[in-house]
């Protein structure tokens, strides 16, 4: 009975493979085969819903073992990562709920997407996503969850790219994926820390080991997973990616940013409940970030003029509340909140396209008078508190500029120092040529008899040149034009270097290097 759990993520995955190959090879391409694609996707997802609900039923009758092991995925010394699944409790409830919601959304999208150009692509991504999401929820270890986590992120990237020939969509998709990548890095950090400190990456083991962890270790693990969760669930400093993700067809927004994927952050935190309980600092952070996000989403949501943006901020606000509840220790409440919110949000996103018909003639609720009077709050809210611009200004632009500087440095300094082959044509082969060159404008006595490459060659050349220069000076004596030019050039170079070094990005780098060495 337990082994059925494997099929829950596997069935949609097989559907994704069939649709994907079908599209590549060509048997699922035109409008005639749309119904085939839709049926494959719908059937597999509903089958996985049936399986999940069967398993949930047996779990409620206490007939399930707590986990099911498939085999080993990777082993290296004492690191061993299995493919295993959780077959009881909250994970199963969530799996059932999400597969139900996915089935509903898939059913609705058949009509919504009918005869669109990317019909097959849409169902391919959605099937892959439902498989990834089931893996995320049901996997019994952190790496498996990360597998689903990342593939779900990729699917979200693909669906934002749904209209990939629109420039804005592509920029947004890239932005969203890279932002999510920060969260993924934190997730990997969490996996590594739990491997080094708790010596396990299995969720059930991590729960039992949690009691033996010191507060510091628990805080480290909890904080890195919490950061990953914040990014995925669009909590405070990362909220703007959620708005950017609103490209793409509405049904996909429903599953990704309304009902399902967005909740995976909260689910992750709930999985790690015992670890968080050991780490008061991480709990505090959950409260603070959750609180700020709720407030932020409320304020920004007030001024949004389109339905999707408004729904987005409602979602992130609710998620903030869930994190707040987790931080305060109301874990059970947060779980119930998650399920309830997923259902409500599916409904509100799916009805979003026809919302205008429903609310026709009814006035829109106005903000509180006290708040409405604040002009600055209105501006700030309309600008979403300049969060996008702020990250751009503090993070993206400095990195871009640093990259630009380094690229210049690489092309003009490292490349020159390391030596470029100087073809024989450039070398002066005879004294007559030297004479010619001197007459031809090079009157500053740069005595280049040789032209060489590479560090050693350059050093030799420099040495020879300087000896010659010294001899020349010794004979001629006195101050000449070239000395002044040289001095000026040196001064300019020093100025440039000073200007460069004093720029904030370099100061930040120096501080970072010092910190990392001290660490």
């Amino acid at each position: 009975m337990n082994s059925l759990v494997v099929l829950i993520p596997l069935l949609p995955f097989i559907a994704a493979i069939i649709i994907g190959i079908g599209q590549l090879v060509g048997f699922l391409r035109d409008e005639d085969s749309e119904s085939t694609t839709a049926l494959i996707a719908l059937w597999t997802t509903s089958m996985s819903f049936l399986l999940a609900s069967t398993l949930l039923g047996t779990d409620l009758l206490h007939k399930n073992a707590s986990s099911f092991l498939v085999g080993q995925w990777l082993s290296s010394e004492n690191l061993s990562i299995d493919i295993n699944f959780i077959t009881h409790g909250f994970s199963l409830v969530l799996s059932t709920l999400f597969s139900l919601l996915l089935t509903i959304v898939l059913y609705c999208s058949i009509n919504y997407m009918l005869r669109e150009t990317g019909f097959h692509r849409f169902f391919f991504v959605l099937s892959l996503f439902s498989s990834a999401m089931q893996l995320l929820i049901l996997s019994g270890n952190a790496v498996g969850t990360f597998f689903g986590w990342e593939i779900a992120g990729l699917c979200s990237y693909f669906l934002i790219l749904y209209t990939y020939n629109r420039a804005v969509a592509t920029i947004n998709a890239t932005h969203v994926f890279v932002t999510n990548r920060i969260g993924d890095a934190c997730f990997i950090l969490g996996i590594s820390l739990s491997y080094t400190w708790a010596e396990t990456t299995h969720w059930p083991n991590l729960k039992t080991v949690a009691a033996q962890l010191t507060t510091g270790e628990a805080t480290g693990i909890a904080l890195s997973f919490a950061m990953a969760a914040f990014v995925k669930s669009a909590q405070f400093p990362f909220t703007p990616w959620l708005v950017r993700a609103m490209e793409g067809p509405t049904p996909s927004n429903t599953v990704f940013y309304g009902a399902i994927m967005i909740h995976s952050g909260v689910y992750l935190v709930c999985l790690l409940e015992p670890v968080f309980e050991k780490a008061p600092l991480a709990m505090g952070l959950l409260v603070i970030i959750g609180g700020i996000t709720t407030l932020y989403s409320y304020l920004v949501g007030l001024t949004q003029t389109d339905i999707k943006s408004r729904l987005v901020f409602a979602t992130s606000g609710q998620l903030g509340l869930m994190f707040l509840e987790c931080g305060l220790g109301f874990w059970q409440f947060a779980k119930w909140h998650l399920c309830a919110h997923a259902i409500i949000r599916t409904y509100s996103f799916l009805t979003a396209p026809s919302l205008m018909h429903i609310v026709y003639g009814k006035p829109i609720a106005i903000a509180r008078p006290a708040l409405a009077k604040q002009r600055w709050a209105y501006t700030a809210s309309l600008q979403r508190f300049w969060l996008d611009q702020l990250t751009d200004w503090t993070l993206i632009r400095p990195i871009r500029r640093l990259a630009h500087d380094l690229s210049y440095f690489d092309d003009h300094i490292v490349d020159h120092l390391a030596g470029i082959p100087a073809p024989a044509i450039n070398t002066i082969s005879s004294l007559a040529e030297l004479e010619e060159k001197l007459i031809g404008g090079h009157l500053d006595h740069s005595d280049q008899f040789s032209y060489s490459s590479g560090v050693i060659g350059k050093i030799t050349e420099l040495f020879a040149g300087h000896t010659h220069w010294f001899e020349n000076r010794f004979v001629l004596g006195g101050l000449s034009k070239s000395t002044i030019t040289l001095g000026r050039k040196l001064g300019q170079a020093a100025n440039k270097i000073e200007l460069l070094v004093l720029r904030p990005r370099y100061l930040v780098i120096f501080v970072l290097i010092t910190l990392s060495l001290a660490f």
Partner: protein
Amino acid sequence: MSTAPFPVLSLIILLPVMGAIIIGLIPKQAVTKKIALVIASLEVILTGLVFILFNPADGAHFQLIEHYPWIPRLHIDYLIGIDGISVLFLPMSALLTLCSIIAAWNSVHHLQRLHFALLLLLEAVTIGVFSALDTMLFFLFSELTLPPLFFLISLWGIGPKRRNAALKYTLFMLFGGVPLLFAILLLAMNHVTAVNGSLPEDLSFNLLVLLDTPLTSNLQLLVFVLFLLGFSAKAPLVPFHTWLPTVLMEGPTQVTALLIGLKLGLYGILRFTLPLAPSAAVEYSWTLGILGAITLIYSALIALQQTNLRRLLGYASISHVGLVLIGIASLTMQGLQGALFQLFNFTLISSSLMLIAGFIQQRTGSNEAIHLGGLAKVAPRLTCFYFLFMLASIGLPGTSGFPAELLLILGALSAHHSLGFSALAGSVLCAAYMLSFTRKVFLGPITQTSVNALQDLRPREIALLCIPALLVLALGFFPNYLLKTNQMAAEAWLSHLLEQSTLEHNESIPFSTPERP
């Protein structure tokens, strides 16, 4: 340690040479390609056979050894064999050569015979590098890669400065060769003093003997630095990396795919630098780590600025070299196995991306982002393959990039936190440069007429890309298959290093194992 019943390794080295000679003897252009293809396919089969003959349970020891005296007076031998570390490089080199011969099928028009002969010669020499167990023989093979590559780059290059690029490449490699030769001689002379022998009777270039010859700590440091200097030009590491972008811009893509996929320098670091100077290696592993971290972040940042696909791939590959070096420097099992895995990935992922860049170059005459844009619309199959390899290069789960990166980061974090954090920062930057470039080239509206008329991948090209694509996916889902092959060898490698260093340096605390309360 076991000698080979049948000289299969020598056969593998000699077969392409024979092929090159046959191509030289038969003046018909039409047959050339077929001969090359047959020889390259035979090589793949033979190296596959080696992989089957190889016993992973005994992977710690060298197998299929062939030992013949070569210059008896100096004790330089023809000694070849494989262990768990090198066994996978053989089939990969053969496969990559096969791919590049298929890729050159229609793109090389003048001097076709010479081109295919040189490719085969290069294959022979490369396999020689990976199986040589005599330091002098290794040196010889690694220097012998230069002539074929010099001509391949300078005669069939696609850039206007291909001759300069070829010269630059050769100069850099020769620069790397000098310290290598010094280090090899130093080790041979040390063997004389260690056994209280006399010159030249007791010179030894045998790697198996040298590994057990004690070395004073001063000499160890010297040997370590010399080897590192030599291999850092070949790997390449910052600041000796500038030849790679130049060559990638100027060289023919099927050859640069070989160049980017086979990391002789990193193999050298694994095979010679660390094991031959164990205590210095353990003591100064932090320099390796810092060098790796600098290489990783520096080239990742530069990659953000690139506008040409081939240059981008060059910097991305340098950045991944940094990551591999971090893994090696961590001196942990995870880091080491991750490094070996990643070396395998270079051949699969970077080379395939380079071949794709070549296909785009052939069709549009450019790899510059400004000349492309919106390729996904006109060439969906090409885009599919590109996306798969691009995502593998980022390290997405489900592709072979992920287990390698996970192991490397795990190893780095357990060695030192800053190494781990730079590896993590590198993975974020990798996504940033890859995706922002993808956006410019493959997505967005089509602006150029040349792109509009572009033809999608042909069946030959699809077949060519399918092999690495399937391997990438298979290893992403079943990484253990690869890890089991080199597990014993990696364990032996690591314990050799740590034991030797504790024998000689009882008081020093290795960098890899920070004490935890």
